């Protein structure tokens, strides 16, 4: 019984949150990695792109809520999500047209593009704060739990409860669907194949008649979709605050790099590696160990490796360790 309790506690406090967080990171890292693969620079504006897409979704969610439209047990935000994606697509195409295209034609060095993306970060950051303000915004509605801790305890008679939030369920399901769609697109369709060809060898792709501007445009459209979905899911799961999205940039990049920049499968694996290490290292293991250890040997302290304030630090330690031993990430990434 104690063993079961320990497993449930572990699931409740470590596995479920980490899987949800990992899915969000994976979606964000996929966007970063696609841009790196196709456009060949690290997009520092990605966190703020997520914030922008999520902001539009939040605004439309509020509009729908005020009209009395809802999805019943599901959050209304899912209904507003397509509009958010469209808004984000418009934004990214506009920034590409106004900002990035010039440097692409110049064949500017990647590091110049990174600095340019810093400028875009500033602008988007200012824009989002200007429109929705710097504060926390809540927009989640509908049913809060799929399984609440109390029902679980009543059902099973265990001492430990297992709670799964609706947002966590939605996060995982959406992530699976989106990733499946993305891989189907990249591996099965003509456009997807031309994107991969362009990513592998630009000159060869140009020779075989692939239109680079079209590839770039489609990349931005996909990235807009991924970024908005990741942003909205994170916002639903926690809450929407512009500054946290800027900070999300760090674990997202860590995920993309740990997996190998430019490699979509790596991005997903990296997202989960980072999420699980963040949660396990900052989790107080006392509860789980108390169930597992024989009586009298229970730990006195919290058995927490690092305090939760060092979450960010954990993702970077993992990043550094991986880079020191595998300089291009777990799955072979590329370097420009």
């Amino acid at each position, binding site marked *: 019984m104690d063993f079961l309790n320990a497993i449930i506690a572990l699931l409740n406090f470590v596995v479920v949150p980490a899987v949800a967080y990992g899915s969000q990171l994976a979606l964000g890292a996929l966007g970063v990695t696609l841009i790196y693969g196709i456009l060949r620079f690290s997009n520092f504006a990605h966190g703020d792109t997520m914030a922008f897409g999520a902001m539009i979704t939040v605004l439309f969610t509020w509009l729908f809520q005020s009209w009395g439209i809802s999805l019943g047990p599901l959050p209304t935000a899912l209904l507003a999500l397509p509009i958010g994606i469209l808004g984000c697509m418009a934004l990214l195409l506009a920034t590409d047209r106004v900002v990035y295209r010039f440097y692409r034609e110049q064949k500017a060095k*990647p590091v110049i593009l990174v600095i340019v993306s810093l400028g875009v970060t500033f602008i988007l950051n200012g824009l989002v704060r200007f429109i929705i303000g710097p504060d926390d915004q809540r927009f989640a509605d509908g049913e809060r739990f799929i399984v609440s801790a109390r029902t679980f305890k009543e059902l099973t008679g265990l001492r430990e409860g297992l709670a799964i939030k609706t947002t966590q369920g939605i996060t995982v399901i959406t992530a699976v669907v989106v990733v499946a769609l993305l891989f189907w697109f990249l591996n099965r369709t003509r456009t997807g194949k031309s994107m991969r060809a362009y990513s592998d060898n630009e000159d060869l792709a140009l020779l075989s008649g692939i239109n680079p501007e079209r590839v770039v445009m489609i990349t931005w459209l996909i990235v807009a979709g991924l970024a908005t979905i990741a942003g909205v899911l994170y916002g639903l799961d926690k809450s929407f605050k512009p500054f946290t999205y800027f900070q999300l940039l760090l674990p997202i990049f860590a995920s993309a790099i740990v997996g190998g920049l430019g490699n979509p499968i790596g991005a997903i694996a990296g997202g989960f590696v980072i999420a699980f290490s963040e949660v396990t290292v900052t989790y107080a293991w006392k509860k789980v160990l108390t169930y597992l250890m024989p009586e009298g040997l229970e730990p006195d302290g919290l058995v927490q490796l690092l305090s939760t304030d060092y979450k960010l630090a954990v993702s970077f330690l993992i*990043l550094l360790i991986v880079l020191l031993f595998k300089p291009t990430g777990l799955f072979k990434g590329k*370097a420009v």
Partner: protein
Amino acid sequence: MNPVLKNSLLFAAVGAMILYTGFSQSWNTALVVLNMGLISAIMALGVNLQWGFAGLFNVGIMGFVALGGLAAVLMGVSPTPGAWSAGGWNILAAFVFAIGVIIAVVMLRKRMVPGWPRAAAVFFLIVAGFFGYRALFDSGVVAVEAINPALTGNLGGLGIDRGLWVALAWPVGGLFAAGAAWVIGKTALGLRSDYLAIATLGIAEIIIAVLKNEDWLARGVKNVVGLPRPTPYEIDLQNDPVFVERAAGFGLDAVTASTLYVKLLYAGLFTVVLVLLLVLAQRALNSPWGRMMRAIRDNEVAAEAMGKDVTARHLQIFVLGSAICGVAGAMMTTLDGQLTPGTYQPLRFTFLVWVMVIVGGSGNNFGAVLGGFLIWFLWVQVEPMGLWLMQVITSGMAEGSALKAHLIESAAHMRLFTMGLVLLLVLRFSPRGLIPEK
């Protein structure tokens, strides 16, 4: 127009803007802008050394600035009575222990043949070492933080608080930053451009996280306030009859005169530091060493073929540039009189400095200095300008409309937007900056 004249005019223009602030707003504001402008110029010099000279993409400036600030605290505050005997030595011992474990791990990896026994031994050593370290460290921390937690709860520092000696904290800030930069450079400089950028970004966040959470060090987010300063205190000046009389001679009341006087003293000190660093940076730029750095920047492979040790030179300039940022950070903390780790944000302390360097002209020391002053001036003045703009835009709207209230309230966020716009415009239309490299 010859370049010298053009550059002098650019500097004169920025000077005129600050003077205009003095005439139109207040001299106090103008001096506040000037002082932070001087500090920003020093930070920009440091970044220019790394990016402009050597092409290193370091986005961890914030961390080095904060470490400089930590030096100002540790040099300035007086030691907490009993803290060292209570737990200080434990903490120190924990660090020594940790270094010992790391050395042991490195030795083990060198001595044993690769294979699973080595991996297991290393793993066991690290895990055991970590728990040993935490046991030593935690007991020390608990003991130190228990001492009068409302006021101190930290180890305290050297308590250097007499006059100009306080400024000793500034070079020490540089040393702190240099030490950290050496460790970081040793591990991360082998990484390629983008990876290095992310690594430095992350390390800066880790440094801030440590400063926020390790209360025994500098009280964390509880902040250490009332740091000693190299200038006299306003209140002492106001009580000094000689000063009051002299102020009256200028037609100023004692309160205004004292605040201006203190800020002028700071401006003088900061100018000395800036000029000193600028002269050194200029000498470095025009020396064989500077030429070598630019050669490495422009073509690493060719420089390596000429027998230059690229990695070692990168490490060298990474340490030097970070040290300059640390000096600036210590100066800023001394000026503020407190270290507030919660206020360190990458947009303000890393990316804004980058904007300064790019706008001013990377590779040119005078450009970086100009950028420091100009961008800092904009950063401060965009807010009132944005507010004014919003008031003009909304003047036709009905009183009390929600949109009007929102626009005026949000005017403060215009500054980020403006900085991004300035950066993009300069990158597009004048990519070499206002004062380009020769």
